[in-house]
């Protein structure tokens, strides 16, 4: 009898869910604003707005049910530690606080795609404005706000685009675990994202913010109340990176199935592991910097105010100490996807698996020692420049390892050119341009002229959109049958790929040239001699946006309108996540599997199957 107690969770009788969450968020917002305006030290409203956002987020999370477990524990109730009682079916679970990593993966996927739409609309507004060399369509002040909203929204998205949907859904399946280490932290990492996006969007009510995603002081100190959205929204994303990092790393370290040695870990999981290390350690630095900015704007401290004992360089250093690892947070899981898919579609063992792992770790380590390459022209001591130039250029070595592994795997193989594989090849092409242009920016003499130009803007779009988003698309086409049991339409997929690939390059390659012709970023007016180039780019950008609409249409069409049930293992891949039934059972594996071989042993004469799904007799590890 008493044993059964373990799985019967007592609950508070308050109804939880999105309606309660929204209600408490609104209440919290007004309570925070009232409190801030009543007791705030100065009458610029920032205290009230910051407190309002914080209370609104807390209210939302409480309404979703995040307080039930800690409160129940405080009251001494016997609780169900893993939320086993919460395993439920039906559409409703996607709209509730779910502790099932598969539900959270889908929640992330849909949220990321929705946010991507808004970020993309922002890009279209920017490009439309640039049809004319003088700001006729979007006024100059609003232009900067749109740039800020587009950039920060995209940063929020790309921080979680791969780890969120695919890390959460797939890591337990790939490591043979029946659970995540910290399902509540995992759920929290997801439910922090929608409030962050809404709070960011709320900046429009205050006229946006003028700083772009870098939030440089002293502009951030002087900016209007829209800046408060940047602060709170970004802190929430930082918390999401930390909670997700703790959960992912603990899961990969402690819950691998018996037999899954480090040398057998799928390379995608290595990518998730490295990106989680970066997120776990970089986001706290951002959080500290944002707390300082919030204090400066509300309590009138002077962290970034040089006239009163502070320094704007303090922000720039803390921000980029986070900011540079952040860009590898974007790209490392993408590296993982491209290496993973190369092996599966070339049907041969991953060439230089260990080299690939070393490459991922090399990037992870070096990314802590390069941040001042963003400050070459900011007035830092010139003596610092050579070190940061060399450390940055050194990163091209482990990045080269990744290319070596992928190209070595594809070399002289008969590649199965599926839609996901096409996106991987597109990744290689785009990221090569992104990487090579990055070398010029890391080089002090060239950076002095290229800094702040469209060259740098086109460079990071080549790495983030041409890199991470192409890998993101590859992952959707590849794992969609795993996650939904439906095949995405492959013909539409091929059209999508070529459309997106051509439109992407037609958009961003000319922008490299615009940068070399001295067109500055973040400015709504430009040299009229560059109008043709800009109109070309704008029309290409419209095509790029429409390719994403086609992508969305394919997803909706193949998921809901004309679903084609996927066969069990449509790519006939060896890896563990494809060896279990569709839909994936509630606890993934009936028993913890016994791993017998690595995931890439294609074509080896005496290769064993990847796992014995009957498990070790008597084994409970990883349960």
């Amino acid at each position, binding site marked *: 009898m008493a*044993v059964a107690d373990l799985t019967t969770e007592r609950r508070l009788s308050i109804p939880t869910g999105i309606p309660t969450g929204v209600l408490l968020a609104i209440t919290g917002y007004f309570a925070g604003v009232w409190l801030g305006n009543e007791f705030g030290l100065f009458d610029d409203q920032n205290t009230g707005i910051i407190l309002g956002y914080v209370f609104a987020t807390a209210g939302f999370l409480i309404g979703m049910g995040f307080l039930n477990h*800690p409160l129940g524990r405080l009251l001494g109730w016997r609780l169900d530690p893993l939320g086993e009682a919460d395993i439920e079916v039906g559409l409703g679970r996607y709209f509730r606080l779910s502790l099932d990593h598969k539900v959270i993966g889908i929640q992330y996927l849909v949220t990321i795609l929705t946010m991507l739409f808004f970020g993309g609309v922002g890009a279209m507004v920017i490009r439309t404005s640039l049809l004319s060399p003088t700001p006729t369509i979007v006024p100059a002040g609003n232009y900067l706000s749109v740039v800020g909203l587009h950039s920060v929204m995209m940063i929020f998205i790309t921080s979680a685009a791969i780890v969120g949907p695919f890390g959460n859904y797939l890591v337990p399946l790939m490591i043979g675990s029946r659970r995540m280490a910290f399902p509540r932290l995992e759920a929290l990492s997801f439910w922090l994202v929608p409030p962050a996006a809404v709070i960011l969007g709320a900046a429009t009510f205050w006229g946006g913010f003028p700083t772009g995603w870098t939030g440089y002081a002293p502009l951030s100190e002087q900016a209007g109340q829209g800046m408060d959205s940047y602060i709170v929204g970004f802190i929430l994303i930082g918390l999401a990176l930390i909670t997700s990092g703790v959960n992912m790393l603990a899961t990969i370290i402690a819950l691998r199935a018996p037999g899954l040695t480090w040398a057998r870990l799928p390379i995608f999981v290595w990518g998730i592991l490295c990106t989680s290390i970066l997120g776990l350690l970089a986001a*706290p*630095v951002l959080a500290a910097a944002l*707390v300082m900015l919030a204090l400066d704007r509300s*309590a009138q401290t002077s962290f970034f105010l040089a006239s009163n004992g*502070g320094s704007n360089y303090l922000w720039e250093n803390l921000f980029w100490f986070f900011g540079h690892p952040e860009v590898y947070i974007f790209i490392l899981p993408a590296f993982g996807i491209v290496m993973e898919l190369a092996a599966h579609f070339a049907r041969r063992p991953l060439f230089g698996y260990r080299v690939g792992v070393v490459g991922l770790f090399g990037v992870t380590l070096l990314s802590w020692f390069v941040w001042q390459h963003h400050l070459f022209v900011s007035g830092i001591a010139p003596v610092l420049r050579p070190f940061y130039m060399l450390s940055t250029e050194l990163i091209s070595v482990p990045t080269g390892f990744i290319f070596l592994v992928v190209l070595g795997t594809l070399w002289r193989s008969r590649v199965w050119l599926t839609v996901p594989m096409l996106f991987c090849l597109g990744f290689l092409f785009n990221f090569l341009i992104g990487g090579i242009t990055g070398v010029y920016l890391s080089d002090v003499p060239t950076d002095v002229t290229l800094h702040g130009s469209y060259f740098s803007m086109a460079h990071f779009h080549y790495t983030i959109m041409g890199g991470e988003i192409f890998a993101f698309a590859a992952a959707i086409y590849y794992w969609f049958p795993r996650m939904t049991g439906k095949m995405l339409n492959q013909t539409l997929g091929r059209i999508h790929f070529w459309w997106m690939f051509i439109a992407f390059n037609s958009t961003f390659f000319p922008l490299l040239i615009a940068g070399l012709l001295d067109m500055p970023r973040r400015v709504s007016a430009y040299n009229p001699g560059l109008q043709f180039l800009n109109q070309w780019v704008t029309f290409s950008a419209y095509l790029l946006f429409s390719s994403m609409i086609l992508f969305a249409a394919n997803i909706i069409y193949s998921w809901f309108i004309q679903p084609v049930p996927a066969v069990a293992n449509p790519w006939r891949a060896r890896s563990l996540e494809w060896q279990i039934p569709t839909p994936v059972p509630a606890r993934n594996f009936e028993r913890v599997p016994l791993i017998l071989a690595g995931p890439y042993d294609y074509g080896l004469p005496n290769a064993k199957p990847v796992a014995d799904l009957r498990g070790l007799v008597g084994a409970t590890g990883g349960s």
Partner: protein
Amino acid sequence: MAAETRYSAAEAALAALDVRIASVGMWLFLAANAFYYAAWYFAFFYLKALNNNGAWMISGLTRPSRAYGTIVLLLALVSAGAYALATRAPVRTLLWRLPAVAALVVGLGVVLFQAYEMWHLGFGLTQGGFPSVFVGLTGSWVVEWAAATFWLATIISQARVGGDTILRAAPVAAFANLLGFLAVVGILNWILLYFLP
């Protein structure tokens, strides 16, 4: 508080696994935490070294009271020490319960005294670099300490007959590392904020 609870072998294995997960998770969280405080220490030394406009520590600034700072630190050390002592005894014994409850009570004292000190600083937040760092660093630390105190209360509450802490010893052991970590940060803050400027 019904009869003795029996646990199946599977649950015992689950509990053993939980100990490892909680321990790994806590070390990861503390690593993140270390980077958070490192950012604050960087701010401390950076602003102190730059001393922009001579406003790191303006002349005539009332220093924070060493007496208050020392009281808060001592309370934090007693709390963390008492909890460390508790973890040496099995949960549910008097030797666990007494020091754990003491850690909770003293831990609450840390929050109250620190809040009292923040209310009676003797300097204004607008008075330059040092007051900024003092408030941010001390504020971050006490907020985290308060959250840890809440957590400690849940652990004590669960350490009754039939509570899940008896079986799942994980949070009990891992939590000691959190209090220990916060105590170390408290010592560093005490040296920097009360003796170094």
